[in-house]
């Protein structure tokens, strides 16, 4: 078990308000980090900061043992990002969207049928995304995540809009991902626990 992502002395302000300061966190391979806290406590901001979309006021982040600054390309090649927005084009259908994704990162498109099958999407390939339900769009985002084959998954509220089967599926996917030596950072206010492999950061 090696250290994958490590944050030291992190501090972030939004406007005048300090969301957190002197925050320490670590994610090892095969581990799940849950960021929880009430609404507005800065879960999403922390996640965006770790992904490099936001700059921390203070502190440093290490990726695979090296400082993340200057290593962003290697970091991003190994990162998938699942936010509360789907991140796909509503006018394109599922295959066109996922095909675009595989142009951005080196994915194996032969896995597409299997992934779609797993997500229960294989009958919806011809429809533009705007005619899918919110939960189905969410599943498309998950399918993209699976195709990317990255080591680190960053998920912001992965359970929103999903039905109970979908939520169970997400937990199952995370468990499998950890089993394969991947890591996962989840910002959520819902309970998620994977035995023996879960770390927790609670924001006030």
């Amino acid at each position, binding site marked *: 078990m090696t250290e994958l992502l490590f944050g030291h002395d992190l501090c972030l302000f939004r406007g005048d308000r300090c969301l957190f300061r002197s925050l320490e966190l670590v994610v090892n391979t095969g581990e799940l980090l849950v960021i929880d806290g009430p609404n507005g406590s800065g879960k999403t901001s922390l996640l965006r900061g770790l992904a490099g979309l936001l700059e921390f006021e203070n502190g440093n982040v290490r990726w695979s043992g090296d400082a993340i600054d200057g290593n962003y390309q290697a970091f*991003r090649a190994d990162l998938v990002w699942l936010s509360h*927005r789907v991140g796909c084009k509503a006018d394109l259908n599922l295959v066109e969207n996922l095909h675009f994704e595989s*142009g951005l*990162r080196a994915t194996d498109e032969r896995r597409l049928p299997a992934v779609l099958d797993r997500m229960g999407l294989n009958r919806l390939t011809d429809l533009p995304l705007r005619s899918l339900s919110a939960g189905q769009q969410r599943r498309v985002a998950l399918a993209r995540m699976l195709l990317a084959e990255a080591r680190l998954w960053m998920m912001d509220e992965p359970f929103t809009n999903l039905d109970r089967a979908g939520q169970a599926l997400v937990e199952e996917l995370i468990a499998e991902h950890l089993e394969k030596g991947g890591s996962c950072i989840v910002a959520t206010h819902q309970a998620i626990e994977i035995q023996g492999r879960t770390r927790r950061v609670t924001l006030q």
Partner: protein
Amino acid sequence: MNDVILNMPSVLRGFSAVVRRDILLAWKRPGDMLNPLFFFAMVSTLFPLAVGPTTEQLAFSGPGVVWVAALLASLLSLNSLFMSDFEDGSLDQLLLSPQPLPMLTLAKAVSHWLIAGLPLVLVSPLVAITFQMPARTIGVMMVTLSFGTMSLSLLGSIGAALTVGLNRGTALLSLLILPLAMPVLIFGARTVSMAAADDAVSAGVYFLAAYCMLMLTLAPFATAAALRISNE
């Protein structure tokens, strides 16, 4: 370490993926593409009606009108360059993809030119005929317009990136871009006028080409930096 290198996708694939996707999107929503084109055609065909039909008047105002209309038509569509990506979260995905961001912003600007600029250049001869421009002038106009619209797409991508998080950033976007676009307008319209008067045009064309190259090399980096800031 080995699989890290294997995981790196080729830069050209990312570039062409963005261009292909944007063209496909424009294809599925032709209204977005046709709007600026109609605007361009309307403004430049209404002008002869208002200014007067004599050949001298038309020849005098033609180049300026066509260029102003082209400039405004490009501005019209620039605002949406990153807006839809920002709203549906694809911008986050682009920023977090392993591709170098300047390459992706260059792809966005190039596809904007293919969608908004190139059709304009292709339609311009029809407009030029209403101004009774001779064939040589039309040729020069198309060349200068190609360089001009390309420069505007690239320059505009910087402005669009800076204003992406703002509601109704259109006015601000125009304010940011127009001063930098002035040389393009001045040299473009002037070169076409000179062509109409049978003067040498190469200086103007060279200037526009140089400006376009400058934008081609600098704008993607500026756009990438601006996107990172405004997407915080």
